[in-house]
């Protein structure tokens, strides 16, 4: 069982809005891992769009991503890349 975690900065202008949250949730379902995002005192399962929207993560916020399971390391890398890549958005 792998466990890993990382902190990533929300860089895109729109923050963790509906489309970004959906992309993240889709990506989360591809890994055999429990993925949880933390921001301040709030947390959300990575595969739940509704829960991710509740984080209200706007541009400039830092989110911690914790992954547990056989695929934890790959999941963390993929999700970290997605956030760093501004969810594939232009700005």
């Amino acid at each position, binding site marked *: 069982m792998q466990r890993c975690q990382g902190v990533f900065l929300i860089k895109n*202008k*729109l*923050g*963790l*809005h*509906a*489309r970004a*949250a*959906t*992309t993240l*949730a*889709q990506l989360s*379902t591809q890994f055999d891992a429990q993925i949880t995002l933390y921001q301040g005192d709030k947390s959300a399962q990575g595969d*739940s*769009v*509704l*829960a991710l*929207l*509740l*984080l*209200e*993560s*706007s*541009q400039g916020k830092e989110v911690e991503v914790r992954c547990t399971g056989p695929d934890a390391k790959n999941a963390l890398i993929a999700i970290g890349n997605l956030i760093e890549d501004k969810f594939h958005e232009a700005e």
Partner: protein
Amino acid sequence: MKLSTLISEDCSKAAVLFNSKKRILQYISELAQEKIPNANQHDILEALLNREKLGSTGIGKGIAIPHGRLAGLDNIIAILLVNQQPIPFDAYDDRNVDIFVSLIVPEGGNKQHLETLASIAGKLNDKHFCKRLRQASNDHELYQVLVEFDK
């Protein structure tokens, strides 16, 4: 933010019956146009369709939040529809959708948009709330569910 303030009673429609994504978005654009007299329905529909092209607004659990941005708008227009049966909406969890919370939002205002989405998500994350929305048999009953859960 209270959902019963965001969504007015005449924008709450229970037990509607549409059988496709396009039809439901057309109906939403009709309702929205009545609230924004100086916009035309075609522009509203285009905004909604363009957003769906970027990726479905089906956010799972039978819920979708079709939305679009419209220039020159002063306030958010929010519309709640509950369809009599779940329809295909390309949601990421592959579930068909029967609850639609639609937003027409002004350009910009990104932080406010996130706040609005979070308020809606907070309510829709409650299974009991969704069940009550699905059970409402008329528009008034549907709106009263919003009022009740805002207390």
